């Protein structure tokens, strides 16, 4: 009896009666997947359909069906050949896919020109914990669940984190926002933040300007800027008069060229040794660190690129810069350091073990800001290079500007000034919840909220994926101290790290993409990109890389990957860097299923050919005339 049922099951599993509905279901399901991808994005479609366990089960069922279809035809006849080969090909391809999915690696490696890297960022998410003294981390993978999860889901993980941390919850889609930390004190301490509503026939937006994190904002045709004035009552625009008076402007240069107050430090670092040099006291002096001698050539507080050279330009925004000369005895090179653009460099990766930076008090709190802006608009802009976009954007000729002045001595209101083509058009004081009906295209400005001591804090709230977004919202986990109360838990979005101390020791918790180390490093020697003439469409782009342990550099380009130690590196994309260099992005891939898939492909193709040929023979045998 049982045997009979088993036999029936066996034949059913290999029957076409099963194959047709299962294939129909597959077609339907993946069709839905493509619609989800179109409405939302590829990531969501993957999570909902292709990475779903039920979908895996469906594929397994098809695999078994194909297998049993071949087995139930036993004993095989000669005319089964095409059929058998086809099905063998399918089994191999599916098997290879299974191996890839479960044991393969697929991630991204990003290398900047002149640098090297061996870290590949994978798709999968992990929570890792380590103590400050121990560099090895305990790491657990978290599947990208689609639903909220409680502590019980993470019991094994928490067992592993014992003594360190505890994961108490999971949020599938989180809205991560920077919000103002509620501060009890009414101190007029910076940073200052003003929340504005900008309304016109075309737009209606609410946007915050923060003196520390975001003090400029391009909104349609106008640039909004938050500026500090020492005293609002004195009306900062009075400086306007001095624009025409060149004498005064040059007088100002002598004042501002000298860093007004506070520190102006050149920071040097080679390996473990660090030195700091007070720039004000040490003009034209030389400092020795490691094998290098560094000499200060010029100190500027309003640096701008004029006629392809860096000059002190009092009409420009505050932009402290330092020109230094570095020598190691054999070679001497020039380097420019900007306090505002610490990543900027002109030494093209030379003397890379020497770290240089310039910190100036002028950047942190520049009391002269108002004055320098007052003369700023409309002046030199044509010849400034894009390397310093920060100073270029501030001096667009003919640009419309809305300036918002705040002052610690007049803390309850701001002064709004409208500027057009370097001339002030109108102004008005605004307190909280007051509205300014501007004469510009019916634009309406409302100061919704002003806050001092406006420090930011990350807030995580649940959300749902919305349509047509390029990316899914980040997921988040709720993490707390091992011995802490649940009320002290914190939601961590992807990419977040937090630390806390237990018994005088510091611990670090990280949540985000899994990062693995390759058994070799990839150095990007150079990157080249050729556009189609007269367009910005790249015709081809390629990376010249050197793999550690190899002597000859190799070129990786579209359709020409690099194979090394079982890994394959593909040119995926590139990113232009602010300093004119490129970062190359490689897709890194380790695929144990590849041989099976290729073999399966060949076998399948062979089978289909045989099948097509043999069918026609059989049809003729059946006496059919076309």
């Amino acid at each position: 009896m049982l045997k009979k049922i088993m036999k029936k099951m066996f034949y059913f599993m290999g029957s076409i009666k099963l194959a047709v509905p299962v294939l129909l279901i597959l077609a339907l399901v993946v069709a839905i997947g493509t619609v989800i991808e179109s409405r939302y994005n590829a990531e969501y479609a993957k999570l909902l359909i292709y990475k779903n366990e039920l979908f895996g089960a469906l594929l397994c069922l098809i695999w078994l069906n194909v297998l049993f279809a071949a087995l139930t035809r036993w004993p095989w006849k000669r005319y089964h050949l095409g059929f058998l080969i086809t099905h063998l090909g399918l089994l191999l391809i599916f098997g290879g896919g299974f191996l890839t999915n479960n044991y393969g690696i697929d991630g991204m490696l990003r290398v900047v020109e002149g640098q090297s890297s061996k870290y590949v960022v994978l798709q999968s998410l992990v929570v890792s914990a380590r103590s400050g003294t121990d560099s090895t981390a305990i790491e657990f993978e978290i599947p990208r669940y689609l639903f909220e999860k409680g502590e019980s889901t993470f019991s094994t993980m928490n067992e592993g984190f014992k003594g360190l941390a505890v994961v108490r919850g999971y949020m599938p889609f989180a809205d991560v926002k920077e919000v103002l930390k509620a501060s009890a004190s009414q101190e007029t301490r910076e940073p200052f933040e003003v929340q504005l509503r900008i309304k016109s026939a075309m737009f209606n937006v609410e946007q915050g300007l923060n003196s520390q994190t975001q003090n400029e904002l391009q909104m349609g045709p106008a640039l909004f800027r938050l500026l500090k004035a020492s005293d609002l009552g004195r009306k900062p625009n009075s400086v306007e008069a001095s624009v025409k008076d060149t004498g005064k402007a040059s007088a100002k240069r002598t004042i501002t060229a000298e860093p007004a107050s506070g520190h102006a430090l050149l920071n040097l670092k080679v390996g473990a040794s660090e030195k700091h040099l007070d720039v004000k006291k040490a003009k034209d002096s030389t400092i020795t660190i490691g094998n290098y001698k560094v000499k200060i050539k010029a100190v500027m507080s309003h640096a701008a690129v004029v006629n392809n050279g860096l000059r002190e330009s009092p009409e420009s925004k505050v932009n402290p810069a330092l020109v230094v000369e570095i020598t190691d005895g054999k070679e001497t090179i020039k380097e420019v350091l900007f306090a505002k653009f610490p990543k900027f460099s002109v030494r093209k990766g030379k003397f890379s073990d020497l770290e240089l930076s310039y910190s100036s008090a002028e950047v942190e709190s520049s009391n002269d800001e108002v004055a320098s802006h007052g003369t700023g608009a409309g002046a030199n802009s044509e010849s400034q290079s894009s390397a310093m976009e920060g100073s270029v954007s501030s001096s667009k000729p003919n640009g419309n500007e809305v300036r918002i002045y705040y002052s610690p001595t007049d803390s309850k209101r701001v002064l709004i000034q409208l500027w057009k083509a370097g001339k002030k058009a109108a102004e008005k004081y605004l307190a909280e919840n007051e509205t300014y009906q501007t004469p510009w295209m019916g634009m309406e400005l409302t100061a919704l909220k002003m806050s001092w001591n406006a420090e930011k804090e990350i807030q995580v709230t649940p959300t749902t994926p919305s349509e047509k977004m390029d990316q899914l919202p980040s997921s988040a986990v709720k993490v707390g101290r091992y011995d802490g109360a649940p009320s002290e838990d914190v939601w961590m979005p992807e990419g977040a790290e937090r630390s806390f101390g237990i018994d005088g020791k510091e611990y670090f918790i990280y949540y985000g993409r899994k990062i693995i180390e390759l058994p070799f490093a990839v150095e990007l020697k150079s990157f080249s990109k050729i556009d189609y003439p007269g367009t910005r469409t790249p015709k081809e782009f390629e990376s010249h890389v050197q793999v550690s342990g190899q002597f000859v550099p190799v070129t990786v380009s579209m359709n020409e990957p690099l194979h090394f130690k079982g890994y394959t590196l593909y040119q995926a994309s590139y990113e232009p860097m602010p300093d004119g260099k490129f970062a190359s992005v490689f897709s890194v891939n380790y695929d144990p299923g590849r041989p099976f898939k290729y073999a399966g492909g060949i076998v399948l193709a062979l089978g289909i050919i045989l099948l097509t040929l043999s069918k026609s023979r059989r049809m003729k045998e059946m006496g059919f005339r076309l």
Partner: protein
Amino acid sequence: MKYLLSLLLLCSGLAARADFIFDQFIAKAQSLPYEELRGLPLLNNGRIKPLESLAKETSIYLTGSYQFKGLHPIQLLLGLMISDDGENLQLIEVRSPELRKQLGLPTPESRRHYSLKELMSANLESLASALMEKQKVNKRSLTEVENKTIETYEQTWMFQQARNGALLLGAMEPAQAATDPAQTPQSSAVVDEFKLLMQALSTKDSVEYQKHAAELKQKLNAQNWPEPVRAQLSNIDRELFYQQYKPFRWACWIFFLFAFLMVFPKSNEWVFKTVPKTISATLLFIPLIFLALGFYIRVSITGFAPVTNMYGTMIWVALGVGFFGWIFYLIYRNGVFLALTYFGAFCLLLITEQMPLVISPDMDPIVAVLRSNFWLTIHVLTITISYAAFSIAMLLGNTMIIRDLLKRNNVEWIKTYGHFCYRTIQLGVFLLSIGIILGGVWADYSWGRFWGWDPKETWALIADLGFLILLHARLVGWVDLYRLLLLAPLSYLLVIMAWYGVNFILATGLHSYGFSSGGAQIVTVFVSVQLLLIFGSFFTRMLRAKKV
């Protein structure tokens, strides 16, 4: 009352003035000579092309037509440059009716063309620039009308470029075009020559015109073109030939002619009996020669198998359909089958001819990832040629359905053509499966994964499964030949989805190079009619069976 009257008068006066300006412009432009300028080599959109091509592309983009009011596209371009009243010319086509309404453009409803002035006073610029900001943040979030708004704004931009000469001069000066395409180039030998030419045109001095046209051509040929495109100078004559003699249009109508001739049993029989096989076969091959010629020219100009956009694949499928039909005719001497396939090829070519804005025929450069001739050729050509086989199966099915609805079917017919259908489906499944595997290998080779459930691959698989299921169902006897013929067009809808739908409707995924929009209404009508036919045939057959 008096006020109203004067207002009315003013309005009609304005309208009449606009018409007058327009007529004057057309008359002036129509008198412009252009024959000598057709082959001027210009650098535009990353390749060197003749002025004829550039002008055609500009004309279709601005006005929606290759021959706006009977003007040759070059006449349109030159006319715009010498016209003093350009901003009042009503020739920018606003293609979206919703946008016309939204901008509050002057009626009547049927009007599609507006002047730069009208569009600018309708506040198009502020609307579009806000949308472009939105586009920068998230490209996919724009609605169709919003995309059309940006397109219309870009049309006005292009119009201004064409009018102030920046379009042509920029295409003549490669060095300056490379640095800033928006700037009108400064003086140079070529630019000066062109200015002299324009002067001759506006003073109607034909001797001077001839002289400067010849000199300009010579100077452009000697121009210091950038290295990667310099070799394309030798393609100019070929492309000009292609633009002037339109081999695809010839093929299209010859297909139609032969289809028409062969579809009648009598004429078919007559050909069969009187014309020797070799001669009829040779004659029937003529449209394929035209197709192959056009195809060859496109390959030689672009340097790549021309299947990188919808236009290319449709031509290729038409070639496949026609070729399969011809081969089958040689083997089976079946005129109806030939007529059917030729009719199919005709339809495909007609669609490409009629919808240049949706199915763009330009030969502009392809994205970096496609630049692998080997893979492009064997993967895309195999996949799309399978569509040709499926198209034939679909045509056979539909013929059966129509005959069925007309009560003209008999068992013999269904048996013969049912087997034809089975064979073509087999051929299609064979080609598509191989093509999918090849695509997997290419994807593995260039992206690092064999299969990633990308919409294009997924839909190719679904289409394959759709026909594979039919084959299997036929194998076990679930469907007879009648049902096979009935269901082939149904499965073909999956091919349409894979071919058109992924690129034009879903418009997402890694195969993003062929994406476009438009044509949705036509495809919707096709799909609905197809479904009606299938179900109509199914139910009438059921009813008839009941009666008996």
